């Protein structure tokens, strides 16, 4: 192995790749060659660093210089200044890594975004090259599998997981040790291990990032699962819309086979295990376990009633252990560092950490991993860097279309499975969308419901027709045609959908509506009674007006109005014809005197 004095780590996650990190890698390699440094400096493409808002991100070690929003033109400067002369290019550093008022560069662990984070599932993301199995091995990779195969019985593995308190990270929060025990004790000569990588929540991308940044952590954990329950075959069900993750997973499986870490007689113990990938077409319902299993079997992805649970009768009618990507990513660390260590992190009933995809109206959009029990305030104000443009925090939506919202007054609630459920939200797979005062809660509920209407598989009536009718009622309200009886009808319909639906998709579909109704009923009433949208989002309810005292009569609004709804004489206040107005808002953005209001 060559010794390189410096490593240039370029983020190769989906976010940074789409903002051009591949051209940076090419440019680095070109410039390094020109400077004759290609034998001294190594360029590594890694997984996601988490701070996606500032991509593409480049970290140069050993200094640990964190460069953000790097452009192709900047590469030569980094090579000339930093790599040849050892002078860090301060203007490209992430502003938070430079101590205020001085020139000192802080360690990454001191930066607000990373300070409160604790990386277990994401431990190798942004550190290793995901396409090189040896780097994973160097970070203690496959030692957990070796330990399990040579020193532990399946019962001991299950006991370790139970004591660790790990719960399913896909959303349900079912105790993982218990699930493994059910699958192990289910009678059957053939069993399967499966991984749910069909991450469907809009806004959630932690599973994708784990597979892109550290695919071997999932492969190793699935092999451990195979040994524990007595399976020799595993399937990873991943959506075809994740091409980078699929590609890296394929490379990783290939390399694991090459090194004899998958296949026959692993570590000479006689244990056989192999993995295959199954691509999904990107249907939300296929994240539901029975639909996922049906889809792997080659049928149309539709759920079936439970019981029998997959642990008893799953893939091809055989006992099947199905876990989510992030759950698997925690397993090897638990085996290596012990259940007691893992159980010391988090709250009483929720142990360990959880990865959240932070999105919406927040400064540091990206991926964060926090210990359970961290408050929403810490996530929003410290890690997330607050709400941009000086706006006020209004609510956070967790769990995507199956979850609910957390209003501003509950911002100090600790994030764990049970406290989120108790306030009518849920952990979900970890999408965390932050909303400010410009978001209309009725509109948000409508948005998520539109998603479930589209994604309902149509097998059962409450979900197929119920969500559609519910959507229509919300549409009526946002158009200003709703009545108070409609709100009662919505509540009733939500309950029927929840009780009558076959699978998790329908049972949780009304959650966004119910939780916004619970915390923001006044907004619904404002839409229905006052015919006003307090946030000014619902177009049918907002009227644009010109304040005569502020209008100088410049006429810019009239010139820009696409439908000719504004009229007036120069130097006199103009007027908007509300009949003609299509509420596009162009006039308001164009007015130099801020004389137009909603």
């Amino acid at each position, binding site marked *: *192995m060559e*010794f390189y004095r410096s*490593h240039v780590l370029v983020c190769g996650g989906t976010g940074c790749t789409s903002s051009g990190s591949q051209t940076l890698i090419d440019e680095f390699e070109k410039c390094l060659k020109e400077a004759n440094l290609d034998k001294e400096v190594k360029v590594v493409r890694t997984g996601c660093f988490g701070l996606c808002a500032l991509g593409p991100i480049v970290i140069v070690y*050993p200094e640990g210089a964190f460069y953000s929003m790097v452009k192709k033109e900047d590469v030569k400067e980094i090579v000339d200044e930093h790599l040849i*002369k050892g002078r860090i290019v301060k203007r490209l550093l992430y502003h938070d890594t430079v101590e205020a008022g001085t020139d000192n560069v802080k*360690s990454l662990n001191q930066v607000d975004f990373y300070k409160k984070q604790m990386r277990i599932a994401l431990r190798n993301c942004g550190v290793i090259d995901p396409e090189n199995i040896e780097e994973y*091995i160097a970070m203690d990779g*496959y030692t957990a599998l070796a330990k399990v195969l040579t020193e532990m019985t399946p019962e001991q593995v299950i006991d370790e997981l139970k004591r660790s308190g790990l719960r399913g990270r896909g959303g349900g929060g079912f105790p993982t040790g218990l699930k493994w025990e059910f699958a192990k004790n289910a009678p059957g000569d053939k069993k399967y291990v499966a991984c749910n990588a069909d991450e469907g929540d809009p806004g959630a991308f932690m599973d994708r990032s784990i597979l892109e940044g550290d695919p071997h952590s999932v492969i190793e954990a699935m092999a451990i699962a195979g040994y524990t329950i007595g399976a020799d075959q595993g399937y990873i069900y991943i959506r075809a819309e994740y091409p980078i993750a699929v590609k890296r997973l394929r490379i990783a499986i290939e390399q694991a086979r090459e*090194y004899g870490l998958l296949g026959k007689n692993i570590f*000479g113990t006689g244990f056989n295990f192999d993995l295959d990938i199954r691509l999904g077409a990107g249907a939300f319902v296929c994240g539901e376990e029975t639909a996922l299993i049906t889809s792997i079997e080659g049928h149309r992805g539709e759920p079936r009633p439970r019981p029998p649970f997959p642990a008893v009768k799953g893939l091809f009618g055989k006992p099947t252990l199905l876990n989510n990507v992030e759950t698997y990513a925690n397993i090897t660390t638990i085996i290596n560092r012990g259940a007691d260590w893992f159980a010391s992190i988090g709250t009483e009933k929720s142990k360990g950490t959880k990865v959240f995809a932070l999105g919406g109206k927040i400064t540091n959009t990206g991926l964060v991993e926090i210990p359970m029990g961290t408050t929403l305030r810490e996530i929003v104000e410290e890690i997330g860097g607050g709400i941009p443009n000086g706006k006020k925090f209004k609510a956070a939506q967790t769990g995507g279309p199956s979850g609910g919202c957390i209003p501003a007054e509950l911002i100090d609630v600790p994030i764990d499975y049970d406290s989120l459920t108790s306030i009518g939200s849920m952990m979900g797979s970890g999408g965390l969308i932050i909303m400010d005062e410009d978001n209309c809660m009725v509109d948000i509920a409508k948005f998520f419901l539109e998603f479930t209407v589209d994604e309902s598989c149509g097998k059962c009536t409450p979900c197929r027709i119920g969500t559609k009718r519910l959507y229509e009622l919300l549409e009526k309200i946002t158009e200003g045609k709703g009545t108070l009886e409609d709100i009662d009808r919505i509540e009733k319909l939500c309950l029927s959908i929840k009780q009558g639906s076959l699978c998790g998709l329908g049972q949780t579909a009304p959650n966004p509506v119910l939780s916004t109704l619970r915390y923001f009923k006044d907004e619904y009433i404002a839409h229905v009674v006052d015919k006003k949208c307090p946030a000014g989002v619902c177009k049918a309810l907002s009227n644009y007006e010109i304040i005569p005292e502020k209008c100088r009569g410049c006429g810019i609004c009239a010139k820009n109005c696409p439908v000719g709804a504004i009229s007036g004489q120069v130097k006199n206040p103009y007027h908007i014809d509300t009949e003609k107005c299509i509420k596009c808002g162009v006039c308001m953005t164009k007015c130099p005197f801020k004389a137009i209001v909603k």
Partner: protein
Amino acid sequence: MKSISELQKIREKVLSEVNLRQDRQDGIRIVVGMATCGIAAGARPVMQEFISEISKRNLLNVKVIQTGCIGMCRLEPIVEVYVPGQEKVTYVKMTPDKVARIVSEHIVNGKVVDEYTVGAQS
């Protein structure tokens, strides 16, 4: 993979490389002055020699870092060695053939090579 010792071997081989990416403050730092003056006086071959010497001996806790002008341009190439808890040692007028001795005596065995230091040479 037939045995755990095979896994261990790969792990040790690659660790020295990946280790560079840990935010660790406890290792020995070898800082080479690489401003125009240093480069002109021949700092690059010196640094390359350090790199190859360190990889030969598989020293995990040593980092080779470049820096700008140290100030005594007439004594370039200058190399400063920081061992945690000790005062820094400055070697001046370095050449590639002095490197092996510094690594074996100072870096590995903790004995400063007095005759190469700024005190002896200036």
